[in-house]
């Protein structure tokens, strides 16, 4: 009999290992599968039992609850205060549209057999029968855009690399998920690493690249070890190596580990870092698609972008683009974090409203105090107020509302938050993480933090606010990359949407 206890690092962080150990102690005949997390992190540790009627869930379970689960005959779906019914019928999960995350939490992350049974490798096998042009057309047709934050159409990037002649091309997966409030890359790698490997292999076949590199951050040690094991299994299986699944294509993947630098998530700084150098941003042009890693044509895509490709090739572009709104097609993996009652992964078609994410899924704040602010798209994203809850969550609507989608992180704050302090932090973070290449970013960030400090202390408030806005304009217009260029976004949005926090000491 199989019992599922997530082995995802978020689940482990609140005691999943202890739960698994306790279950094994009480009944050693059980097969305990360490699956990925279903994404309902508020229910972790979510223990599932495989019964004839499907998987039955209990959560959130702690080691102290385990004995009572056995007493309640949970192995046969017995009643218990923590019982959630059939996992597939939990409304929070059942109402989602899981495409990129279709297998996460369901399969054993390191079982190629289960991967195959759940639709894995269909996309790659289809791709191997197609021409390079046909694969790229399918990706372009699907409308898939870069999920790292820039939202550039994936197919167009791939086409540029395919059309550039070179002896060596690279597929670089950006897994330097540094944005606070984002964890989808980590959960996908920990819960379904073969999907990423499949997406990268398809990209390699499509553009004629034989080497793939995953730049994975050092803060994710568990994801590093799972992905390393998955790569080795794929090699043994004859998937990665000199002949991809028996074809004439060669493709292999190597992991390069980051070293705690946020700016290395910027694609050109990432290339420098993979080359073993300081993570200093490069000027564009040349585009990485033409002169990228070690000067060669390089596809750089985010984990979620590459992990969506297998589905596009398996089910076809029309199935993918049937979802979404306007030019934001398909689904987005939203990540609900911060002060939220029901945080985790919500994969929905673009166009879901902020209100639906925060209320229907999020269930209000964790502290049960009134919700006040939400930051969308990481540390460089805008702070939204309660008056903007009807905003549609898609690339264009968020830009129109003065923000950006970024990597899909949604961070909630209750009414104890002081937006002037948050704005100051945005500048401080930029000062710490700036690569130092551009003056507006390197020096402007420190001057910005000082100026906001003066506003907080009530020193010449109006004058300093004007100065701060001027500085923001210089940073936006005068920085090479998004680090300096977008740091003004959280600052300005905080000033515009929460003016009462910027009136100085009298507030």
């Amino acid at each position, binding site marked *: 009999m199989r019992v599922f206890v997530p082995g995802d690092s*978020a689940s*482990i962080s609140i005691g999943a290992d202890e739960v698994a150990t306790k279950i094994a102690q009480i009944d050693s005949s059980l097969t305990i599968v360490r699956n990925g997390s279903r994404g309902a992190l508020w229910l*972790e540790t979510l223990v599932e039992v495989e019964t004839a009627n499907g998987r039955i869930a209990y959560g959130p379970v702690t080691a102290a609850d385990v004995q009572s689960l056995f007493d309640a005959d949970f192995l046969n779906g017995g009643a218990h205060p923590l019982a959630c019914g059939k996992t597939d019928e939990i409304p929070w999960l059942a109402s989602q549209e899981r495409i990129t995350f279709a297998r996460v939490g369901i399969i054993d992350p390191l079982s190629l057999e289960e991967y195959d049974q759940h639709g894995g490798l269909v996309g790659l096998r289809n791709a191997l029968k197609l021409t390079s042009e046909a694969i790229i057309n399918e990706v372009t047709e699907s409308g898939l855009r870069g999920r790292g934050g820039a939202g550039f159409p994936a197919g167009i990037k791939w086409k540029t690399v395919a059309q550039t002649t070179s002896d060596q091309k690279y597929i670089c997966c950006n897994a330097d998920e540094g944005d*606070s*409030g984002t964890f989808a890359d980590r959960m996908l790698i920990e819960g379904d690493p073969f999907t990423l490997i499949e997406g990268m292999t398809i990209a390699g076949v499509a553009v004629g690249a034989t080497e793939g590199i995953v730049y994975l951050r050092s803060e994710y040690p568990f994801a590093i070890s799972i992905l390393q094991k998955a790569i080795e299994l794929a090699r043994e299986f004859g998937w990665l190596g000199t002949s991809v699944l028996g074809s004439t294509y060669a493709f292999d993947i190597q992991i390069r580990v980051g070293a705690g630098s946020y700016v290395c998530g910027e694609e050109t700084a990432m290339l420098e870092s993979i080359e073993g150098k300081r*993570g200093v941003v490069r000027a564009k042009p040349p585009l990485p698609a033409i002169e990228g890693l070690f000067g060669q044509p390089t596809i750089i895509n985010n984990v979620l972008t590459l992990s969506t490709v297998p589905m596009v090739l398996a089910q076809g572009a029309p199935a993918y683009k049937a979802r979404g709104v306007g030019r934001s097609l398909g689904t987005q993996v939203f990540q609900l974090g911060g002060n939220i009652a029901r945080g985790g992964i919500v994969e929905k078609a673009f166009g879901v409203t902020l209100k639906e994410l925060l209320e229907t899924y999020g269930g209000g704040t964790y502290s049960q105090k009134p919700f006040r602010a939400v930051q969308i798209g990481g540390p460089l994203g805008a702070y939204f107020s309660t008056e903007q809850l009807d905003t549609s969550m898609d690339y264009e609507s968020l830009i129109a509302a003065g923000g950006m989608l970024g990597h899909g992180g949604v961070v909630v704050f209750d009414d104890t938050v002081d937006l002037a302090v948050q704005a100051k932090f945005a500048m401080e973070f930029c000062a710490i993480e700036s690569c130092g290449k551009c003056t507006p970013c390197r020096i402007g960030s420190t001057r910005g933090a000082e100026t906001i400090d003066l506003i907080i202390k009530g020193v010449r408030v109006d004058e300093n606010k004007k100065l701060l806005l001027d500085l923001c304009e210089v940073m936006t217009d005068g920085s090479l990359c998004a680090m300096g260029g977008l740091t003004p976004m959280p600052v300005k949005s905080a000033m515009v949407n929460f003016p009462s926090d910027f009136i100085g000491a009298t507030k």
Partner: protein
Amino acid sequence: MKYSQWSQDAARLLLATLRDEKGPVLMALQLMQKEFGYVNPECVPLIANYFNKSRADVHGVLTFYHDLRTTPPGEHQISICAAEACQAMGARALVTAVKAKFADEVIDSYCFGNCALGPAVMVDGKLIGRATLAKIEQARA
């Protein structure tokens, strides 16, 4: 965490494993830290010579990345996430409380990808969700 005693000979043997890597300097520094717990300043000329780089190149990489340290670590390392999602769950107060007790062990970090179960803290490589001072004390015991 247990680390090997620093020795140039051991370091050279480790560097040999990276001989065929492209762009090996950062990897080399990370390997030194993994093995010895820190990057001994003697590594700079050693890596420079081994991979035919200038000492300035190696020093530049060593000083750019937050992860790399040039002094031996203490017995415990407590990394506390100080980014927004954890701030929303009281990370600022937690940082102050932990620093008051274990000032030498605390490293400011940004994001372990545990943003729905904050504050997130890593104690000696083990991730802790919904972290409190008590949980941190228990983990380092």
